[in-house]
């Protein structure tokens, strides 16, 4: 019951936040010099002022700013994100077309970084000060400090070019008559490099965070009580220390999850992954404002959704939250 109340209140707030972001994005984009009509006209070689004006009327750009904003918000409320004149398709279709690829990539990166990060961090903490701990912390520091694009290029160079183990580009390359299993395997092989590259930074963050948090929790009073009960060190670490230590990691995982949709631009570009990030990049280059705005709105909505999800997860892992909020 309380969870339902919580969910409703968070959803209400979330909708307000998304609407505020729509207004802000809309204003910002219209502050940028050059409108889509003049860009299109310029590209098609037409310098005729009448033609540009005709385009403006067609796009609704001749209307007063507030009217345009109002119409746009009204559209968003009805889940209509406008029309991309450049691509000659509704924006929502374009975005929904690319969304699964991005969710697959970032979701895989998320799961990868979270599991590997927490497991490695816990492992390092259990061997604190010993060689295994040193190796794990050093490697994670290297990944923490290396720029993403460089890591991506190196991964392609080593695993695709030199070793030829994994494909470097695209989402799939099997033809139309493949079975479902073959397709899945094909996509999975394409997924490995971009997902790992994208996830490595956060893996390193989780390793360090889990390790530090576990060492801190292990010093707390209740661990002594557990020892006094006669529990084995293994049970103490797994069942009690790790569970308490994972709370700050959940907070950070929420941040990462929120970034998932918008934050993969670079990886998608390097690995030619047909996702939202590349769509946004193309829209920006082509001044396809409606499309750009659409991507922003969907990303913002995703951030809000993942934040709510994080809070829900938090309420599940930490019983104290319910009362204190």
């Amino acid at each position, binding site marked *: 019951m309380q969870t339902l*109340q919580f969910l*409703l*209140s968070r959803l*209400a707030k979330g909708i307000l936040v998304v609407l505020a972001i729509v207004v802000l994005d809309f204003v910002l984009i219209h502050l940028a010099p050059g409108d889509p009509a003049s860009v299109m006209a310029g590209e098609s070689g037409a310098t005729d002022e009448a033609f540009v004006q005709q385009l403006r009327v067609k796009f609704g750009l001749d209307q007063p700013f507030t009217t345009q904003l109002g119409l746009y918000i009204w559209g968003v409320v009805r889940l209509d994100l406008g029309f991309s004149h450049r691509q000659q398709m509704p924006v929502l279709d374009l975005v929904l077309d690319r969304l699964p690829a991005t969710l697959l990539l970032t979701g895989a990166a998320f799961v990868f970084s979270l599991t590997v990060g927490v497991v490695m961090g816990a492992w390092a903490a259990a061997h604190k000060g010993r060689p295994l701990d040193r190796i794990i912390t050093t490697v994670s520091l290297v990944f923490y400090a290396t720029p993403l694009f460089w890591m991506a290029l190196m991964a392609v160079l080593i695993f695709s070019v030199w070793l030829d183990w994994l494909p470097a580009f695209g989402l799939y390359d099997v033809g139309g008559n493949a079975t479902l299993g073959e397709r899945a395997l094909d996509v999975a092989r394409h997924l490995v490099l971009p997902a790992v590259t994208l996830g490595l930074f956060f893996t390193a963050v989780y390793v360090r965070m889990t390790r530090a948090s576990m060492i801190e929790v292990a010093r*707390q*009073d*209740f661990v*002594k*009580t*557990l*020892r*006094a*009960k*006669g*529990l*084995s060190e293994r*049970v103490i670490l797994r069942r*009690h220390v790790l*569970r*308490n230590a994972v709370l700050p990691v959940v907070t950070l995982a929420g941040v990462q999850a929120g970034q998932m949709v918008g934050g993969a631009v670079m990886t998608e570009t390097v690995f030619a992954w047909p996702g939202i990030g590349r769509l946004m990049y193309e829209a920006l280059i082509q001044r396809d404002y409606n499309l750009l705005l659409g991507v922003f709105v969907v990303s913002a909505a995703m951030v809000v959704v993942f934040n709510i999800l994080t809070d829900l997860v938090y309420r599940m*892992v*930490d*019983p*104290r939250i319910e*009362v204190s909020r």
Partner: protein
Amino acid sequence: MSEPTVPHEPVLSVANLAIELPAGADRLYAVEHVSFDIHRGETLAIVGESGSGKSMSANAVMGLLPPGTRAAQGTAKLDGIDLLRLDAEAMRAIRGRRIGMIFQEPMTALDPLMRIGDQIAEVFEAHGLLAPAERRARALALLTEVGIPEPERAIHAYPFQLSGGQRQRVVIAMALALDPVLLIADEPTTALDVTTQAQILKLIRELQDKHGTAVMFITHDFGVVADIADRVVVMSKGRVVETGAAADVLGAPQDAYTRQLIAAIPTGRPAAGDGPRKAAGETVLEVRGLTKTYRSAGGFFRPARVVHAVRDVSFDLARGETLGVVGESGSGKSSLGRCLVRLIEPDAGSIRLNGQETMGQSVGEMRIWRRRMQMVFQDPYGSLNPRTRVGRIVAEGPIAAGMPIGAALKKAGDLLALVGLDASAVDRFPHEFSGGQRQRIGIARALALDPEIIIADEAVSALDVSIQAQVLRLLADLKTRLDLALIFITHDLRVAATICDKVAVMRKGEVVEMGPAAQVFGDPQHEYTRRLIAAIPGRAEGDAFGARAAAI
């Protein structure tokens, strides 16, 4: 209460124990030449101040010494088996099964993310006993036995849903789950309110009588010792200085250190020769109808919660007078102090300083009078900035008030000398000082602005008795010399009775009783005051502080 000694083997026999500290510590051994026996059904109190090695000795018996330390010499035989020679796995089988342990801090002694019932059931699981359903049934029975209200509900509760006293009951339930022969209680009531302390002591006593458990009770409080111990071991600086039956040690201490410790206990009687107390000067502080209410912000669907931290509190304070504010945790006594110096903003009421109203002033106006009312805080470790030199800490107030830095630092030096610290203290950092010394620094800091009123919020609660006595003397001395008014907030009624002229007893934000200290403690009118006094450890019926006076 121990059975007359049939010559049987002691449950635990510690002989010549020495615990080695890590290299580079200030001494080689944490404890040395420690020997004592505990028999079935007996309570042995190990008494000493912080750093005496009393907890270390208990941890050694439990096999829970901190990393870097180790039992270097001696034996600790539990029913003939030397615990110090057991390997980790054998020791684990003993912990929880043969020896139970309870700790000082009930608030942090339980895993915050696990239900109470599961935590108790875990004791059986750890030793591979019973099926899960039986474990649950036993957990329920144990919760009932330790007197948790509504055990069927509590078994599903998380620790944060229980009070400190209830959590300590849960820890006791876990410690006694497998009917151990020995229970080690490491300051189990120190963090509790006085009435809760009395209940927990009673519970331990009852369970001990029922199960015949031997109890090793570690404490710094001689009042508690008088209440529960059969025999006493007094420790100082890692050595046993005195051992004997409780009545003998308390009544006729042989060792100089024990005598000194017992003499340092607040007597609950005003120190003799304190001069005419009635000659109090003009009134410096008038408080009327002070109120602070907390409302938790309600959300879209949430009702707001209301807590009355301070409720319609009124009193006068004269120059040279000490007002004690006593009450249990959550009674609002600290909120009252913070409201007075406006660290929290009261909702309503009037605070008149030398006849001038201070409520409703701007921040700038507040700065002018705030220096006349200064606070000394409870935690001598947390209340000083660890990265700032002591001289600067003390001088900061005057500098902020416009005094040239050189003059302020010179004054800081003088003040540190006034509170009994060496002149070199100015250039040192807080971590170089002991708890008592830090509290002196805190007092010097409060005095730096030449205040007329000092508000001491549990200023001696974290200190050992002997240090506590010194700091109390210092405060009393400064009060007379500088003609200060003192508001002394404490949960310790003995301390309040010793140094206060007037006492206000608070409960749930309200002052339930106020009057001269002798009257409030000698002839309490309110039922709550009577309950508080009855709960003071080590007292006999009829006289609030008589038992120890007689014992001494």
